[in-house]
């Protein structure tokens, strides 16, 4: 069965929030919008976002690493948010695995969000329905867009090209390959949610220095040393 999903490359993600604001920008005006913002110019601005970026630090100085985590709905294959929905408003599409909310059926009980271990559903207090990442379903199947634009907004905008999109079940897809080749992993693997979205781990490049070749014996260096150490 097809499972569309995002694969996020933590080897290039610099935590810039481009995916988050572009997602907001696209989705607030598109089919699943608006994404309400409450008190946007006041003390506690609080809006609905489909995609948020968090940053973590690992280890102690100076062995510190930083880890940016862009987090949007993972479109789990065993999505715990779907069966708990009493009305069926929260559903997983069979044809592509996208988890969606049908706003017309949503009664706003919030139970789906309680059942998501990732915190990837956000309730819109103005519309009183649950909102979440749609993988830009209103872009990816929109035939009025040029084919290269039929991708989620976050993928198109990512300046670090850290976001891949495709069918992770299709062995010929780019996402399938990068997951396999680069040890893609999922969040909370023990939660048995079987997320669609994967992350590619950071790798560390090293430069090999051959100390057999390198010798501190540059004659010019030695000459300077000799000349200027003579006098003291």
């Amino acid at each position: 069965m097809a499972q569309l999903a995002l694969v996020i490359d933590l080897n290039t993600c610099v935590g810039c929030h481009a995916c988050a604001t572009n997602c907001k920008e696209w989705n607030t005006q598109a089919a699943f919008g608006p994404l309400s913002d409450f008190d946007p110019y006041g003390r506690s601005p609080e809006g609905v976002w489909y995609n948020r970026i968090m940053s973590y630090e690992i280890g102690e100085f100076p062995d510190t690493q930083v880890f940016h985590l862009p987090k949007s709905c993972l479109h789990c294959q065993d999505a715990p948010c779907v069966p708990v929905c009493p009305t069926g408003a929260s559903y997983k599409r069979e044809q592509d695995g996208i988890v969606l909310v049908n706003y017309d059926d949503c009664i706003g009980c919030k139970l789906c969000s309680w059942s998501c271990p990732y915190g990837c559903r956000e309730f819109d207090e103005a519309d009183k329905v649950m909102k979440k990442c749609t993988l830009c379903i209103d872009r990816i199947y929109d035939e009025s867009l040029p084919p290269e634009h039929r991708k989620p907004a976050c993928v198109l905008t990512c300046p670090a090209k850290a976001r891949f999109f495709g069918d992770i079940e299709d062995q010929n897809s780019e996402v399938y390959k990068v997951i396999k080749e680069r040890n893609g992993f999922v969040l909370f693997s023990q939660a048995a949610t079987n997320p669609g979205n994967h992350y590619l781990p950071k790798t560390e490049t090293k430069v090999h220095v051959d100390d057999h070749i390198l010798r501190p014996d540059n004659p010019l260096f030695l000459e300077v040393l000799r000349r200027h150490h003579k006098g003291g």
Partner: protein
Amino acid sequence: MEMGGSFYDRKAYSTCYMCACRCGIEVYVRNNKVTYIKGNDAHPTNKGVLCAKGSSGIMKEYSPARLRKPLLRVGPRGSGEFKEIEWDEAIDIAVKWLDEARRKGPQTIAFFTGRDQMQAINGWFAGQLGTVNWAAHGGFCSVNIAAAGLYSIGGSFWEFGEADFENTKYFMMVGVAEDHSSNPFKLGIQEMKRKGGKFVVVNPVRWGYGAVADEWVPIKPGTDGAFFLGIMHVLFKYNLVDWEFLKEYTNATWLVIQAPGTPKDGLFYRNAQGEPMVFDQKSGTLKEASKIVPEDLDPAFIGEFTTPEGYKVRPAFDIFAERLVKDYSPEKVERITGIPAKDIERIAKEMGTVAILEPIELPIEWTDVWGRKHKKTKGRPVSFHIMRGIASHTNGFQTARTVFLLMMMLGVVDAPGGFLNKPPYPKHIEDLPKPYRIDKPDAIKYGEVYPGPHLGYVQNPDDLLVDEKGNPVRIDWAYSWWFPMTAHGCIQNVIPAAYERNPYGIEVMIWYMANMAWNSSQNIPYILKALTATDQAGNYIIPKIITIDAFYSEQVAYSDLVFPDATYLEQWFALSLLDRPPSAVDGPVDALRHPIVDPKENGYDVKPWGDVMVEIGSRLKLPGFVNTDGSSKYKDFKDFIINWQVRPGVGALAGWRGKNGDKHFVGEPNPNQLEMYIKNKGFFYYKLPENMRYYRHVNKDYLEWANSVGFVKKVAPITFNFYIEALQTFRLAGQGLWEGKNQPPNDPILKERLVKYFDPLPFWYPPFEEEVSGNEFPLYAFTQRPMWMYHSWDSQNAWLRQISSRNYLYINPKTAQKLGINHLDWVWVESRIGKVKCQAFLTNTTEPNSVWTWNAIGKMSGAWGLKPDVDEATEGFLLNHVIPHSIKLGTKEIYYGDPITGHLAWFDTKVKVYKAQDQTPVTSPHFRVKPLPYIEEKWKELEVLRYKP
């Protein structure tokens, strides 16, 4: 649910202005409201991607902070009490003020432009007013990088050039205060990393880019120069140096006269024809440097020689080598920087290995300027990027110089995999423009034009803008003895200098897109005092302040007359090659902005500054704006962009010139030029062929082409300045040995400064604050800007402020522990000039000698269309309150800056941090202005923002 392409009825290509990168954007509009902004796929800068700021452009467009009509101050200055007036009245007032000021002397007008992207035009306008006092924001931006680069290699970073991300295998990013530039960098770094390159971050903080770095070098602030000198020491010791590059392309082998106490000391030894000389080891004789390549000389790098006249001379490299060997061994550098010696050695060896032992070769044929054909192009895939963290110290110029020298030693300038210049750079250093010199402030009379350029690159003391006593001619002290090689001006000194009437008073101060009353100035309490101070008669010492801005900034609140600007989606605007060019490595680029939405329809009675400028210029009958019969030359700014020429055939935009639009770069104005830009997705990109991509400084085909379009003045090698002779001329002046007409005032501290810091070869010295603040203020305090706000002025942006509505003081846990500070404690940060209260955040991403915060998130209460009690004005804080704007040198208070360029050294600040007794979560000091009069309605309207036009 409805799906499908209904999200726009109009689509237009333009250029982003959410920060300074000038990316191409596709703007989708429905019912005159922007629905979506996407990166322009075709644009060479961002290749279709768009950052967090660019994607939030819609919220800039509809921000409640937007001004909707001209404002005239009615309350005291800084109270925020204004009345809205009509445009006619506003322009009448400005014309009257400017005319009066011009009659008192045009220099009494100070026109400074902040986030200016039309510097060439604004500078020209200032010249038309007759004033010498114009500059953009370079003085507090990264002029040290620009100046060091231009004086060293005829180019520099960012607009001037960048790493060859396509081919580089080792990329070191140094002192990037989180982002500079935005999309191009992220695109480049990911490309390099995917190809298996190593990415090293040198920064006291590991954060955004640090996450994907293969190595973090947590350096102590202000010590980077020593770090690079240490690296060069190791490279030299292990013979990991591109000697051929140094020999052929730089002046490293040129002989320098060693005659202390004479006017020739430290200058190049020249023959009778004025040709600099080298010592050719093959023939054992002195030869002209220009013959190194043609005659295949073997110039000496090391040694001491005697000329026929009896001068002792040494190759420039020899002098530098002595310094490297004596002063910058890794062990010595470890003590300065806190980076272990063995790491310095390893990093140097890594660089050397990649650049020298493992060069790459591209199958590209090219011809050098001496006529040698190269079958292939050799590359040295090590590259660098340096910015704020290097620039914003009092040793910034010399530190930046260390990097350019390192790049020369590795042979990576203009080499594949190294650093590549973007056309129109590189330029011949000796041909760089100089500021138009006047020798007294009132040299230009009423009705006369200051021909400009206002800014440029002085080559010796006689180029300075000083009067006969050696006092500054410019209000910002640029090109004065205190800041001789200013390059981009010293915007940061304008308000204090005008307030202190030092060197003279200012009648009308004009600020365009600059927030000088807040986050773009330092020592804010002092700046606000300067802006509001009155004389005994009760008149403001700075009599008139005009500000042009689209938003209700703190600067707007401290102005007398405010012109509400249109946004970047509402106006004609040229992103010109005459400016800091928006070019790509592969060729020159310039671009257009054009009105996409109509502000009037959205209730804003605003005018683009360009239109206002044309109107004021015409009303004042400034020579450039009127025909001989007194009629206006330009209808509006659009007309101006098309028809204005800086010299015949060269105007604001380079593409599609000539009557029919068939000429590029040089050609008469084309009435349909802008339509052609719009048709071509908003930009002009002249992609150069592969054989012109590398070694541009000596690439015959490139130089011939560049010469033909006026980018360079001759087809001759651009010799890199390993040794900057110009610096030595100032040093000689400090020693009383300069034989020119400009002589420094008799001030021993100034003279010592000239002698000490104007070293033609880079060296490291501690930032000035070290001496003044000493142990009492042990920590370095600095600011960075988060990627989602870098170079933006959108903290009021509804979406971006949800990410960061307040800032913390980041501090290393071990440092905090010593100070008894716990996570999230409220603390005081105190420098020698004051203190600010803020909340501490403990993090291992920060090295122990540093504390830092995000800049410009803290706001003045009441400004920026935000409710007065917002986080930005309560829990957020502005570090600028404690950043000194001046320093006492001897008995004189001198503006705080790099002694060579005057670059404001805001990262020098040293502080002590201690727990606040009062843990109330509000910053201090606290400033407020009255919000805009109609803002309450806006807030009500926007209580819940549901943007779906």
